[in-house]
Structure formats: structure tokens, C-alpha cells
């Protein structure tokens, strides 16, 4: 069920994974732990693959993380090898995902044992590391990324001061006391703002009396014609290097809070373009490119839960939403999760693996069906999604103020998109800011305001060291992937 919704959500451009999950989250309030987690994980995984469907068929990534797939996928589609490309995307997604889930299950248990060593200072430094990473991975234009991140920080500071509980930046509005809740934030910023944009687009075109563009049907037809070749076993195995790269890079990217699946996809695509034997053809419509990008973005799925389960830190918006669902089920993610809620953790692990099998099965059927859905006329799609967003926001907490917040954020998101500011750093900064602030203040308070505590333990020194190495390493890698992104933009 979850995968079904997920692939749909992913296949519809403009509906991000987080949107799909956020819209599903209220439903889990009325479910038991098992089905609730299954639904969310299904949407989470399904959407990440689903995003590649529209990326390949229409050259429009359904989700940001599928952007790297467009390059090779759409070229193959134009050559009439669309079915092959879609299947490669599916199999690479499932392969990368399954391998990384196994890594998660093995590593998370090990990491949980050392969790107690992470005191307030070390937790702060982990947050600090994640925060630095947003800066280095915030898109093509670092300046715009930083501004967007800063807006995220400012929005996150609205609400009560976490220590003295004095309200700040609330404009003396009592209903802003707890700050901006995450669901109105995400629905507003991603779903509704995108719809406002589309709406203006349609109005603009109507005025110019242009016909609403029609998709080139011959491309779609090639999907269903007998002539279009299936992916062979040999071709699948031939991409093992790229899938391995995708899995490794994706897993590491997933484990680090704030890097996320887009980062995983672009980084592994970048690495594959450097090291694949077929590197000249990657970007010219090669299966290897799809394999690297898709295994890279799906491999972040499992590991992104490690920081959540071990430290209570959400590594991505998706993980944050799974975290909310866990909290609702009475299992607030914390370092003692493994001790307190072993059944929930292990059912989560089992679900991670099962979801892959279901994804493979559903994906195979949906490849045929869903590539058509993206063709739904926009004038039907837009009002439907806006309605869904408003109802979804209200239903989460029966709180009309949340709807106001959501609409204001949607407007902000629309303006940011208009000015070509990336919204990802905003959301990541928004999620990390309260965490970094709390951990920092607890660290400083427990050490009686002695700032030297930051360098006290071996662990904190090591964390600082890793942060520095990461910043240098990623800046270098970024130059490489920037070139690729640059090429992509020119297309």
C-alpha cells in the first residue's frame, strides 16, 4: 500500500517524497505501529524510485534526488530504450537499497552500543558537522544556498527559547509559541509553493493564448511497443561497479545528517563518472549512469535512519517524519531506543528489507501504468493537490493556525523559487537549528559554562577532526560534481 502511494507520489513531478510522507503521516495517527511504519517506509522507498519514472519519461525529475537520472535516462528514452532505462532504474534502486539496509542493520546495532559515550558535547559536535555539510552541499550557488539556510535558521528560532522558555521572534502572537511545526512547513514549502508556481504558469500561458503543451506521444508509445527491448541480466550485472559505488557513497551520504538522497545521487554519479570503465558514455545515455544515480539515491534510505535510531537525530526530512511517527507510537527516538523499544526497532528493520521486495514487484507493474499519470492535465492536478495540502495540514492537529502558517510558508517558498534560491538548505537548516541550539546549550550548561569542554574528550577531538576532513574532501568532490551538474543545466 505504502509503496503504491509512494511510486505514485514520486512519479508526479512536484510532489516530493516528504510531501507524500507528510500527507500520509496523519493517517498513521490512527494505526498500529507495524502498519504505520510500513506505510511510511513504503512511501519513502517507493517515491525515491518513482521520481525516476518521470525523470526518464519526461525529463522532469519527480523528486530532486532523481535529477541525476534525467541525463542518461531521457537520452535512452529518446532512443526508444525507455523500458530498459526504467527497468535499470528500478533494479539499481532496489539493489542499492537492499545492500545499504543490510549495512544499516549491522552498523546501527554496533553504533548503539557506543551511543552512551556521546555526551552533550559530542552530540553538539555531530550536529555541528551536519550543519557544516549543508553549507558544502547546498547546490550550485553557495551564496544562495547560505541565504536560504539562514532563512531556515531564522524560521527555526521562532518560538520559546528552549532554556528560559521566554518567547522570541513570535511577533507577540501566542500561537507561534511552539514555533513553526514541521508539517505545515514542509507542505507549504514544497507542495503548495510549487502549485502556486504552476498556477501562475497556466494563467500566463492562457493569456498568451498558447495551447497547453502536449507530451510527445510517440515517446510514450515506445514504452509499450513490443519492439522496446527489455533489460537483460547481462546488462544488469554489467553495472555492478556503478551500483557498488552508488551503494557505498549513498550509504555514507545517508548516514550523515543533512546530506540526503539528492546529495547521495549526485555524489555517486560524480564518483562513477570518474571511475567507471564506461565513463565517456555516462551522460550520453548509458545504463551505467542510471545505475549509479539510482543506487546512490536509494542507498541513502536505510542509513539515513541510523542517526535517528542511535542519536535521535533525523538525517533527512523522510527520517524526521518516520521519527515523528515513532514518537506518536510512544517510542521517541533516543539513544536508548534499542533498550526501550527493541520490538519497534526490529520490526522497522524487517520492514526496510520487505519494502524493497514490494518495491521491486509494484515498480515492475507501475512502470507501465504510472508513466501515463504524469500526463494528467495540470488544471486538474493543481486544485486537487492544494485541497489535499490544506486538509492535510488542518487534520494533523485540528489547528487552524497551522493552516495560516502553511500558507505563509508557501508564499515564501514561491518567492524563493522565483528568485532561484534552493529550498533544500532552508529545510535542513530549519530541522537542524533547534537540535544544534539545544545540544549546544546543554553542553555548555553541564560544563558550567566552560567552553574548553568542546575539546575535552578523545571523541570530541575525533569528531572535530572528521568535520575538517569532510569539509575539505567534499569541497573537492563538489568541484567535480559541479561540472556534471553544470553540463546537465546546459541540456
Amino acid at each position, binding site marked *: 500500500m505504502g509503496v503504491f502511494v509512494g511510486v505514485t507520489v514520486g512519479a508526479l513531478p512536484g510532489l516530493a517524497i516528504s510531501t507524500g510522507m507528510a500527507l500520509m503521516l496523519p493517517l498513521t495517527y490512527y494505526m498500529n505501529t507495524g502498519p504505520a511504519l510500513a506505510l511510511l517506509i513504503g512511501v519513502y522507498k517507493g517515491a525515491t524510485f518513482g521520481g525516476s519514472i518521470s525523470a526518464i519519461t519526461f525529463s522532469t525529475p519527480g523528486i530532486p534526488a532523481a535529477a541525476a537520472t534525467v541525463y542518461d535516462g531521457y537520452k535512452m528514452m529518446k532512443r526508444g530504450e525507455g523500458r530498459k532505462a526504467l527497468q535499470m532504474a528500478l533494479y539499481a534502486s532496489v539493489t542499492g537499497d537492499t545492500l545499504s539496509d543490510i549495512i544499516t542493520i549491522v552498523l546501527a546495532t554496533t553504533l548503539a552500543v557506543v551511543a552512551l559515550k556521546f555526551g552533550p558535547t559530542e552530540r553538539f559536535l555531530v550536529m555541528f558537522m551536519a550543519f557544516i555539510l549543508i553549507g558544502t552541499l547546498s547546490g550550485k550557488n553557495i551564496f544562495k544556498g547560505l541565504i536560504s539556510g539562514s532563512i531556515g535558521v531564522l524560521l527555526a528560532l521562532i518560538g520559546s527559547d528552549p532554556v528560559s522558555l521566554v518567547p522570541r521572534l513570535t511577533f507577540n502572537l501566542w500561537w507561534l509559541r511552539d514555533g513553526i511545526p514541521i508539517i505545515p512547513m514542509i507542505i507549504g514549502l514544497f507542495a503548495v509553493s510549487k502549485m502556486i508556481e504552476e498556477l501562475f504558469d497556466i494563467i500566463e500561458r492562457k493569456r498568451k493564448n498558447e495551447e497547453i503543451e502536449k507530451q510527445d506521444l510517440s515517446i510514450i508509445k515506445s514504452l509499450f511497443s513490443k519492439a522496446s527491448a527489455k533489460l537483460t541480466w547481462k546488462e544488469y550485472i554489467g553495472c555492478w561497479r556503478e551500483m557498488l559505488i552508488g551503494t557505498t557513497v549513498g550509504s555514507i551520504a545517508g548516514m550523515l545528517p543533512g546530506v540526503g538522497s539528492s546529495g547521495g545521487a549526485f555524489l555517486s554519479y560524480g564518483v562513477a563518472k570518474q571511475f567507471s570503465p564506461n565513463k565517456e558514455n555516462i551522460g550520453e545515455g548509458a545504463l551505467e549512469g542510471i545505475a549509479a544515480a539510482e543506487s546512490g539515491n536509494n542507498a541513502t534510505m536505510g542509513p539515513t535512519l541510523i542517526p535517528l535510531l542511535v542519536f535521535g537525530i533525523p538525517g533527512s526530512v523522510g527520517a524526521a517524519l518516520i521519527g515523528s511517527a515513532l514518537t506518536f507510537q510512544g517510542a521517541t527516538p533516543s539513544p*536508548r531506543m534499542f533498550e526501550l523499544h527493541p520490538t519497534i526497532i526490529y520490526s522497522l528493520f524487517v520492514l526496510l528489507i520487505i519494502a524493497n521486495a514490494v518495491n521491486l514487484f509494484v515498480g515492475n507493474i507501475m512502470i507501465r501504468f504510472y508513466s501515463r499519470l504524469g500526463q494528467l492535465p495540470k488544471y486538474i492536478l493543481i486544485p486537487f493537490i492544494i485541497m489535499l495540502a490544506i486538509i492535510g495540514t488542518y487534520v494533523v492537529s485540528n489547528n487552524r493556525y497551522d493552516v495560516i502558517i502553511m500558507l505563509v510558508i508557501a508564499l515564501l517558498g514561491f518567492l524563493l523559487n522565483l528568485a532561484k534560491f534552493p529550498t533544500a538548505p532552508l529545510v535542513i537548516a530549519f530541522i537542524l537549528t533547534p537540535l544544534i541550539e539545544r545540544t549546544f546549550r546543554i553542553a555548555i550548561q553541564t560544563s558550567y559554562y566552560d567552553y574548553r569542554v568542546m575539546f575535552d574528550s578523545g571523541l570530541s577531538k575525533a569528531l572535530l577532526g572528521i568535520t575538517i576532513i569532510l569539509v575539505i574532501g567534499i569541497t573537492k568532490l563538489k568541484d567535480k560534481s559541479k561540472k556534471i551538474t553544470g553540463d546537465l543545466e546546459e541540456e
Partner: protein
Amino acid sequence: MKRLTVSILLILLLGTLFTFTGAVLAEEYPDKTIQIVVPWGAGGGTDKWTRALSTVAIENYGQPWSVVNIPGSSGMVGWKEMLDRPADGYTIMSTGMSNIIAPIMDSSSAPYTPEEVRPVAIYNFQNPVLIALPDKEWSTWEGLKNYLTENPGRLTIGSALGVSIGTTSVLEQAGLEANLVIYDSTGEAITDLLGGHIDLAIPPPAVAAPLMESGDAVAVLNSGIRDIDLPKFEDVPSAADLGYTGFSTIRWMGMHPDTPDEIVQYANKAIGEMIESPSFQSMMKSMGEKPVWVPLEEVEEIYNHQAKELRRVLENIDL
């Protein structure tokens, strides 16, 4: 023509209804479903208690209870919703401490004061326990007192805000000073205690009990106003034993401040019957919780004491 007739009939009908409801309100209460506003998300502590209670509503309250979650702004949205509805006893708020704390901290913009409610029932007391790792100098109350007298402020206590009030108050009465650090959740504070990053923590008894059982921690003080009826807690000194005034966090229910007395009295008695019903008792026992029933006069007395004490502590301590 038909439509007009229907509209006139409807208006007449509604008019009669309104006239009647005013007159017979108190005598016939309750004659329809009661809405219970829980100002917290579904699945939280207060929500679980309230939903468990609602299962025995029809037999004991005379009408079913419909639980609505209205979270937001530390519970202020739900409280305001209760105030916006008529004072007819058909809306009851079931809550804990945070939406008493919020308007105190935020008095300039809060939409109500903690006095704008008619408390009708208190159904649970939580007596937070101050715990430490075993074999420390401060693992007993005497030891803690001596240590803090010699080293004022040099012990770190980690706690969530609500449960910290009692300990803060007792330490203040004893003239002691400690380094209180407010955590987001009790779980986080306990993790830091077990990892040796802080010296003391303040969990509720249900969380402290397994740690005491396993020998990972010892209880130093019961800062609540009631004894804790759990094994291993017999020898833990309570605030009252030491001659101080304690403070317990409460779960309670309240109605619109203008609700007629008869309705409030009916509600207090009926909720008492619900609490004492065997099926509710066994349900709470399986959850490891202990319900209480408090007569109406005492409910008001305790509520006012809690609100006053909260105001005093929050305005005096430097968090």
C-alpha cells in the same frame, strides 16, 4: 414555497431548542455526547489516560465521551478552544501541567490565565524522583546536602521542565544551589546520567523503578506530595519527611469557568465513578499507572496550590 415553509419550520424548531436548552440545562445534563479536548497529540500520556477513561463513560457518566486532540503552542490552543465553547459542561479539557506553565511564562501574549478554568477532577499524581548513580557522595539526601553546602552549584541535575519543579522548590527551601539543566525529554537526561555526563536526573517513578531495580541508579528524594506505592521506594525520603513542601505534576480535567455548579459537581462525582470502575482500574494497572480520585473541594485546593507554586518557582528561579 416549499422551501420557505421548511426554512420557517427550521427556524422555529431551532428557536424552541435554544429556549429549552437554557432552562433545562442543569437538570438534564448530560443529554448528549461530551467532547473531551486533549490539548496534546494523540498517543501522549494524557491522551492515553483520557482515552482509557472514555471507555467507561457511557455506564458511569451517562453519555459517551468523544476525545478530540487539539495540540499546539504548549497546549494553549486546546485551552483556548475550551474557553471559546459554551459553558454548558459538554466540553471538558483533560490535560497536564504545560498549559499552566505556558501562560505564566508568556503572560504578555497568552490568550488566558491559569485561573480561567473550573477544575473538576484530578486523576493522577506524578511524584518525580531525584536519582543519582550509586556510590556517589550525593547518592543520599544527607550526602547531597553536605556536598552542595561545601560546593554550591557544582552538581548538575538534568531534567525535563515539568518534573523539575518539585526538586527545584525543595532545594530552594533547603537553601541549596545546584546547576539545573532543562532537557527536551526525560529519556535524554537519563542517558546522560548513565553515561556519566551529568550528576543527577529527575524521572517519574515508572522510569526510575527499573533503573533502581537493576542497580544502575539510586533514588535520593521523592519531591512529590504523595508517597510512591512501588517496591524499592519505602526508604526514599519524601519532601514532607524532610519538612519541606513538595510538588507533584498532576493530570486533571477542567471546564469553562462559567459552568454552573451543579454540572461541575455532577462531573466530579461521575468521573470518580469512572475512575473506580473495575475495568478502568485493571486497564491502568496493566499500563503500570495508578489512578486517584479527589473530592471537588480538594481538587480546587490542589489546583490553586499548584498554580500558585508554579508561578512562584518559575518567577524566582533562573533557568
